[in-house]
């Protein structure tokens, strides 16, 4: 699949699964896009993984918006992490975890913002996972594939998001 068509397919599937693309374009800057998310979701606290692409810029925007940087992950409003890859056919993000607590930033906060390098986008999600598993040395202990927010239909099939994981999944794609 051509790169631009791949990206369009990814966006379609990602949004179809309930994800929200935070995509600075036109006159909307990265700072403004983040500010819109923070205001819309009522975010007061955050934590950011140091492995996130553009970590300094994003951290600085969040600080400037007056958010509290917290280590209390279970009570966090926003967790920011890198997405190590993505699969266009299903709109799935891939998170690869080693030692440390980064994985909790994808599972505990109310809102999760993932940052994906556009070049890490693949057609099938397995293409984004297998290279991490089959490299030299021990494989990473935990890989998490995420397709949209946490959801349930367990009560009368009523669709509700944010059961145990994030209620909202935002994605910023950077070059």
């Amino acid at each position, binding site marked *: 699949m051509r790169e631009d068509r791949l990206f369009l397919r990814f966006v379609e599937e990602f949004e179809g699964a309930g994800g929200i693309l935070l995509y600075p374009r036109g006159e909307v800057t990265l700072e403004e896009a983040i500010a819109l998310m923070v205001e819309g979701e009522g975010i007061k606290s955050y934590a950011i993984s140091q492995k996130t692409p553009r970590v300094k810029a994003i951290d600085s925007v969040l600080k400037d918006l007056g958010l509290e940087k917290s280590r209390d992950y279970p009570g966090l409003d926003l967790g920011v992490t890198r997405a190590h890859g993505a699969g266009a056919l299903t709109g799935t993000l891939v998170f690869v975890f080693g030692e440390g607590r980064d994985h909790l930033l994808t599972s505990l906060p109310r809102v999760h913002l993932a940052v994906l390098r556009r070049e890490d986008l693949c057609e099938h999600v397995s293409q984004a996972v297998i290279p991490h598993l089959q490299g030299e040395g021990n*494989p990473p202990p935990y890989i998490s594939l995420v397709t949209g927010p946490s959801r349930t239909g367990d009560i009368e099939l009523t669709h509700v998001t944010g059961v145990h994981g994030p209620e909202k999944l935002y994605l910023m794609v950077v070059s």
Partner: protein
Amino acid sequence: MRGVLKELREYPSRWRRLQEVVRNPIMREALERAMTRFAQGRAQALEGLGDFQELVELCRDMKDRALDRSRELWDRVQNGVVARGGTFYLAPDAQAAREYIGRLAREAGGNLVVKGKSITSEEIELNPYLESLGLEVVETDLGERIIQLAGEKPSHIIVPAIHKTKEEVARVFSQAWGREVPDDPYVITKEVRKDLRQKFLSANMGMTGINVVSADLPAFFLMTNEGNGRLCSTLPPVYVILTGWEKIVESVEDAFTIFDVLPVNSVGLKYSSYLSIFTGSFLWKKGRQFHVVILDNGRRKALDDPFFKEALRCIRCGACMNVCPVYKTVGGHTFAHIYMGGIGAAWTAITNGLEEAREVASLCTGCGTCLEVCPMGIPIPSLVEHVKELAKEKGQAERMAIRLVAKRKLLESATGLASLVAPERIARLPGPAGLITQERVLERPQQPPFHPWALSRGLEMGKGGEVTLFAGCMVEFFYPNIGRDAVELLTRMGVPLQIMKEECCGLPARTVGEMGLWEELAAKNLSYVPPGKPLLFLCATCMSGMHGYRESGKELPPLYDLSQLVLEKLGGGSFPGSCKAKVAYHSPCHLERHLGVKEEPLELLSRIRGVKIIEGEEAHLCCGGAGLYAFKYPPVSV
């Protein structure tokens, strides 16, 4: 004989129990809603997966390869887990698994265990055991939590609490928390999030099932939508995986093939929200433990049984239940032991024994709707027959009934007598048999039966025709008019017919597990079949029964349904006659799903001048006949 009498004595109470279930409007509406939504979602989502049959073949071959190598593959998994600091235990049975997990829980300290949805843990009845050790066990999937607090069992494999209304769910949580909870699914879900978050954070042990294990790394794959599996596996210091021997595949690539199919086939989602992959090297902080418990509990023995081995391919997508007419009618509380539906009968036989399995199997009509949706190509109706065949202690009454009905002379005499003394429509049978006629009106056998009429019409036994007509018992004794019409039509079309000596086709015997009788009837019928002439059927069940004779390697002439033969003789020409009528066509299960004859009857009807075909919504739904089923379970059948 004692078994027969016992079953007959139990018949009224079983009948009443089923009638109560069938008449529960909340259960039926809820199941209808869930199954319709999942089946429609599946149909839409499948469009992106290419040819479904090709996918079935791919999945079946991949899983069979892994099962054939499973002993070697599990050795590899064990080595990998241990090398990365985890422990590995192969539990031979449910008790061993319970006790091992109980020890892990006690050694973990504290008294709280959080669990993800795991039918394997239900199979070993883990929760009551852990509770007997003084531990608090908390189910963390929302649906599972609801039924845990309500003290009930799942009614659906994907949405376990589908039978409960939001008002009932609110009452369950109000009672559990000692405060009023509004009956709003959004509010309830948020309250549960808060409540269970605390449990996740304070538990010493988390436990989940696993969907797939790939042997190459090894890696453990867990798919969920709510995210509870991720928290059970990563927050408590001790993580225990409990999964079955059958979950093995050879490679990570094979695992991904299963996940291409599982959520699509299950609920119509391209991917579930979360797919977690654990490689075992999961010891990133001091004190962290990773334990793998693999459950045998009959699975390895099943590898040596050609029928039950097929059941081991099951990936628990639940699609077979989402299309099953019996499941839609009675739900998972009734059509299950622990594992639900027709496939559940085989699984119950593997893990719990034949007695329980026979109860589940007896509710299956064998309609074969499941065959069209199973991504692993599991021949579920054949597995159900196998369970019935093996469980000889159960179903004795129906076995005896079938043995009687299969005696041609006896059937001739009984129907002959009934045709003389019974009213045209039998609305009330005497004694306990009256329960049958509470649900359906029976028809009187007709005179003369088909064969005497055909002989009087000049048809000969085993000679004189181009095509041999097999009438079958229902046409012979109850609907000879169908036989007469078929003879008249084909004569007018210039097709000379002959008839043959007949026994029951044997299919009703298969449906109750009387495989010996089935073989006996097959041998007799095969000896009567005139060589070289195509065989024509007016009954889909008889045709399917005769088709089954090929399993024994016997040569048979070509088999034709009436619609197929008429269409072939018509070629491109038009039908010799007209009929101004609106016609609704009901597709017989045996014809459509077991023999693959789908289009021909409709094609034939469309070629009759004046006929307008009315598409019925339930044109493909099982009629509930299924041999003796209509008499055994009238509330479900009707």
